[in-house]
């Protein structure tokens, strides 16, 4: 009887521990992650523009290493968003939203500089959007 009780208490404690961990699961940090695919901003954008479903099957939710020329940087109430040039005639871009929880060596990027980010691909809404981004080390 006592053994069963102890076993139950242990089980409950483990369950609570797992639950607590899951509930407080840390945000995704790509600082040390390896990119699933490395691609330049123009090629990534053009693949989405040509065939969104096809591009999603290749890139969606994957960790993408993307590089391109900075077109615009916006600090939007604490969220840094970097637009990378794609050569699109309408001015659509690859949008990299920097992670709010990862550590960043810098959050300002000069327009025209070629930079590389790692981020998870969220899909296409005229721009290609990457979230959880960190600058890729050179």
């Amino acid at each position: 009887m006592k053994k069963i009780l102890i076993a139950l208490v242990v089980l409950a404690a483990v369950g609570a521990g797992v639950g607590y961990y899951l509930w407080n699961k840390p945000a995704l940090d790509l600082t040390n992650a390896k990119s699933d695919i490395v691609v330049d901003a123009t090629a990534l954008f053009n693949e989405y523009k040509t065939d969104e479903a096809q591009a999603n099957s290749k890139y969606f939710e994957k960790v993408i290493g993307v590089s391109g020329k900075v077109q615009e940087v916006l600090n939007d109430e604490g969220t840094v968003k970097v637009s990378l040039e794609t050569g699109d005639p309408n001015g659509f871009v690859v949008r990299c939203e920097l992670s709010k929880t990862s550590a960043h060596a810098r959050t300002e990027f000069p327009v025209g500089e070629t930079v590389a980010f790692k981020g998870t691909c969220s899909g296409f809404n005229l721009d290609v959007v990457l979230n959880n981004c960190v600058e890729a080390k050179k």
Partner: protein
Amino acid sequence: MKKLMLVLFASVTMAANLSAQNFFTRDGKIKFDATAANSPEKIEALSKTATCVLKTTDGAMQWAVLFKSFTFEKTLMGEHFNENYVESSKYPKATFTGKITNLQEVNLTKDGTYNAVVTGKMSVHGVTKDVTTNGAITVGGGMIKINAGFTLNLADYNIDIPSLVSDKVAHDVKILIDAPLKPMN
């Protein structure tokens, strides 16, 4: 003659600048609150990368927001939202295509704040529905700002709430929209 040509040229280019036909943002904020009345924790999320294109000539607009771009306070909530509710790997985005139906009361080329009625088709989770909602449109400083709030019924879009969390997740989700549009080149 030359002067006249110059004046003509100048007035034509000025007119072109004033009447940019398309306004655009890639920084639209869409916030949703799906907290049920008695839920102990808040279930809300925010995307800051919604896109919107607005044609000033006829008030046509097109919106798109990616589900994966929503950030939640709890990572686990975001995972459940994407995997179990909106199934973002199958349906990565929500879109709305519609137009301002009371354009006679909304002057998109004159500074001011207008009450706009917008009607169109909303697509979420593979389901497309006709919707009509009101919003405030503020024209000023060369920009057009759109603010709107409405509710979205999850069952309308075939999004099931598991009974285990039915006391936490609201059946009608409150949506708030805040979009600053600039002239598009």
